[in-house]
């Protein structure tokens, strides 16, 4: 039964590719090259010539910025979330900083950090930090007050209370923030490479368009789609492992129907 479903999906995807091919042939436009050429360009560029020169540096920048944002966001979020004075005081400032469209900070980063690696890492980190921070704050605040009371009754010191009570209670919400930031990291990586770089996937795609190598451009877009898909898959697998206990608990209790926030940019 499962195999038939997979086969059907493969067939449907084949239909999609066929439609693309037909559209390319019907339009006969330079903007939409036939699939064969896109695949050939993809093979030429990404197996394996540009893996090391473009794909790996892109992913490295992204990982560095994302890791920085995760460390700062979760750390500061735990601190802000567990103290209501700090939370109220920082509220408007963080709300405003979050509302700035992250790419708008690119010129600022270029001013302060120049055009190198640190600029890109900074832009990715500052764009990603807000969803993580605000979700961590919400997660800490939204924890069942009984957890804290039990922790107090058992006289847990603040350190083990953080480790055993606060972080696990906030973990599902932190995961929501981390996930939202993942797609932000990807777009900021691409934009920063388009604006100021000499390698990387964003640079590759824009350069291909400017020199009118449209099969290369589509191949690069395809590669970015694959990177996005792979990152998401890795994240979901990791989340499932780390939060397995939470899913079990939620499935056992009543699954409340809350509108879910599907953030993807």
């Amino acid at each position, binding site marked *: 039964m499962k195999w038939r479903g997979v086969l059907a999906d493969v067939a449907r995807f084949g239909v999609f590719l066929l439609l693309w091919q037909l559209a390319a042939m019907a339009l006969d436009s330079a903007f939409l090259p036939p699939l064969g050429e896109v695949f050939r360009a993809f093979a030429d560029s990404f197996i394996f010539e540009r893996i090391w020169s473009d794909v790996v540096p892109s992913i490295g920048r992204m990982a560095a910025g994302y890791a920085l944002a995760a460390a700062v966001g979760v750390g500061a979020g735990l601190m802000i979330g567990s103290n209501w004075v700090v939370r109220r005081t920082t509220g408007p400032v963080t709300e405003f900083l979050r*509302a700035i469209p992250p*790419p708008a900070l690119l010129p*600022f980063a270029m001013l302060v950090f120049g055009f190198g690696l640190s600029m890109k890492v900074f832009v990715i980190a500052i764009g990603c930090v807000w969803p993580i921070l605000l979700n961590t704050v919400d997660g800490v605040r939204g924890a069942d007050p009984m957890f804290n009371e039990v922790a107090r009754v058992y006289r847990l010191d603040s350190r083990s209370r953080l480790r055993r009570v606060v972080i696990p209670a906030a973990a599902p919400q932190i995961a929501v923030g981390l996930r939202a930031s993942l797609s932000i990291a990807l*777009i900021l990586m691409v*934009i920063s490479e388009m604006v100021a770089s000499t390698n990387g996937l964003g640079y590759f795609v824009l350069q291909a*368009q400017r020199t009118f190598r449209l099969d290369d451009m589509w191949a690069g*877009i395809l590669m970015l789609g694959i990177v996005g898909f792979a990152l998401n898959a890795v994240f979901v697998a990791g989340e499932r492992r780390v939060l397995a206990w939470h899913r079990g608990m939620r499935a056992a209790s009543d699954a409340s129907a*809350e*509108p879910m926030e599907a953030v993807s*940019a």
Partner: protein
Amino acid sequence: MIAADRPLARLPGWVLGTAGVAVVLVVFELAARLKLLPARWFPPPSEILRALADEAVTAEFWKTVWATLRGWAMGLGIAALVAIPVGMLIGAIPFLYRQVRVVIEFLRPIPSVALIPVAVLLFGTGFGGKVFLASFAATWPLLFQSMYGVQDVDPVARDTARAYRLGRVRQALFVTLPSAAPYIATGLRVSSAVALILVVTGELVIGSAGVGNAIAVARSGGDVAVAYGYIAVAGLLGLALNTLFKIVERPVLHWHPGQRR
């Protein structure tokens, strides 16, 4: 633990937040004035404010802001016109959902900014390019929220409608649409933020007129205070649009239990 025991808790809610903003501004002002931060990159906030005030009296400034807002509205509008009906249709018809699921799952992870070159090719570097980007990016949250919203109708409500023999049209109007509405409202709010991000990105990278472009121009002209002023404008726009959606959502969806928290 009861907040009212503490003196700070007796203050009205806005006091601490305002204090926070004031502290940040004063710290930056002092750090810049005392040259703790490199003056070349960090003008004092008062100077940024003055630069912004000087800009705000020019017609050019309001044209720039309007260009960004117009791009946002067009992008979000196109996305809503496409994504809400299509998403509801896909969500309502399981057969359709099975057919298109793979394609949607394939297209969604493509970061919207990867299409900047395509936008330039198809629409040039003007208004059309950034609207294309914004509407493409804003389509996805709305599409998924509309799909989930329709799929998540309370089975009891659906069975009740069936028991009372409501026709398809009335069932769609009185059962499906109301239960999908909060999902779509969330989708609109998320998509609005995404559309603004992409409009600013388009202005920044492909250079169509607007706030994003103004930031880039001020930076390359060495006008640091003006550049920061426009970054603040971008933030204020984001804040205003987000607040607007939250304010509109409440009375429109007041009947929904999710709003009564």
